[in-house]
């Protein structure tokens, strides 16, 4: 699995380094250029959040595309590895990229903390965080982001494997439909099993307007039971994806 990951990283090295540089440059432009044009702290914080969100989506798309290439590639499929290893390598790839982005984000927060910007952002109400979990906030946020990414990624891998098994026109539309159906089913199941309580003590990130970011929390998150439910769903997604790779995915 790690060897597969090694070749994914080698293949995408140029794009990954380029992406990291673009992200850092974009953040520097927001930070330094923002000061030059008189952009307030609020505007800079919202723009930074939007930048991270765009890159998180790009990472998701990149990891899905890497998975799609791997399961169709004759060279990869000839190697003596089980289908689970392809899924595992792809999940590790997405986690690795997200972790790198989290490190960059973490460094930015440390910088803000060191120069007093973070305190100002919180005091002026530009950033509002409602946190009720006993976990320390930085660890909690990192865990929530990585868990959310893992959950979404396993669903997308299943959709990709179904898409690459079909030999019909409009496969992208079918995939989109599958994402909508699966997301709705999972939400409906969580609502009915856990009475509408979220799995996360932090229900999301929200840029309310151009000058404030809210991270709304929930005092009554269902907690561990929802994580267990999501873990079961992840296992089912991974199993179904591996079956699709074994039996149905078309190899070029």
């Amino acid at each position, binding site marked *: 699995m790690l060897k597969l990951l090694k070749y994914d990283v*080698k293949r995408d090295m140029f794009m990954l380094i380029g992406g990291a540089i673009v992200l850092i440059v974009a953040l520097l432009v927001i930070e330094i250029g923002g000061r030059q044009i008189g952009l307030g702290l609020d505007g800079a914080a919202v723009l930074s959040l939007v930048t991270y969100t765009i890159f998180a989506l790009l990472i998701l798309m990149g990891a899905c595309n890497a998975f799609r290439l791997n399961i169709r590639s*004759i060279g990869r499929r000839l*190697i*003596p590895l089980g289908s689970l290893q392809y899924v595992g390598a792809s999940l590790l790839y997405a986690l690795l990229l997200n972790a790198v982005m989290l490190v960059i984000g973490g460094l930015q927060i440390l910088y803000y903390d060191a120069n007093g910007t973070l305190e100002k952002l919180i005091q002026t109400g530009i950033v509002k965080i409602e946190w009720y979990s006993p976990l320390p906030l930085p660890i909690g946020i990192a865990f929530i982001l990585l868990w959310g990414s893992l959950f979404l990624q396993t669903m997308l891998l299943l959709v990709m494997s179904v898409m690459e098994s079909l030999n019909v026109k409009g496969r992208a539309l079918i995939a989109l439909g599958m994402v909508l159906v699966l997301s709705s089913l999972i939400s409906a199941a969580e609502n009915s099993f856990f009475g509408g309580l979220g799995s996360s003590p932090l229900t999301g990130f929200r840029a309310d307007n151009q000058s404030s970011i809210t991270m709304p929390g929930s005092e009554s998150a269902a907690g561990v039971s929802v994580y267990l439910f999501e873990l079961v769903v992840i296992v089912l997604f991974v199993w179904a994806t591996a079956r699709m790779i074994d039996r149905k995915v078309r190899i070029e």
Partner: protein
Amino acid sequence: MAPLLEFESVNKTYGKKAALRDIALTIEPGRIVGLLGSNGSGKSTLLRLAAGLNRPDSGKIRVLGHEPGKASKALVSFMPDRPQFEKWMTVGEALDFQRDFFADYDPDKSKRMLEFMKLSRRDKASTLSKGMQERLQLTLALSRRSSLYLLDEPIGGVDPVARDHILDALVEFYEEDSSVIVSTHLIADIERIFDEVLMIRDGSLLLQREVEQLRMESGKSVDQLFKEVYAEC
């Protein structure tokens, strides 16, 4: 000694089209076998099933007693009819990929093959000419000390000089206690190296015979016989 490859009543369809019909065959160790058939006769499908890339609809396949899968892939070296290396790779990286995933990869053999094939590790694989890509494909397949080599059209689309070079490499570098199945429809160029031939038409196996026996029985070369059998298609 157990057969290297066994097919028992294997069927495979793609949609409504039958690609293989009730195929039964056995390949013993130490043979170079020609898998002969016209385009679309089912040669590639047969090799892909043996390599574990596709699953049969019915019937059984065994590679040294293993059903096609993770264990059999470690024993079989397959050269597909299209590039198996990735576009971004250099020749060296394509070989390193083999080294990283296959325990039977032999670096010394690989080095000798690179010299024989006049390939450089630094060359970008996707920019090589068609003939040089075929040489690289064969180098990737034969750099392993496998029990069974499956070569899908190794000389298709290359000039006669390159063909001879590729065939020389095949004879030089395959492992003598292993077997090689070479699919082709260019019989005249390659007939000299076969011990045995399999003829396949419309997904059905027409015959499996020793080359010498076939020549003696028919009084014709394999190429002549092939042209007669497939002239009706």
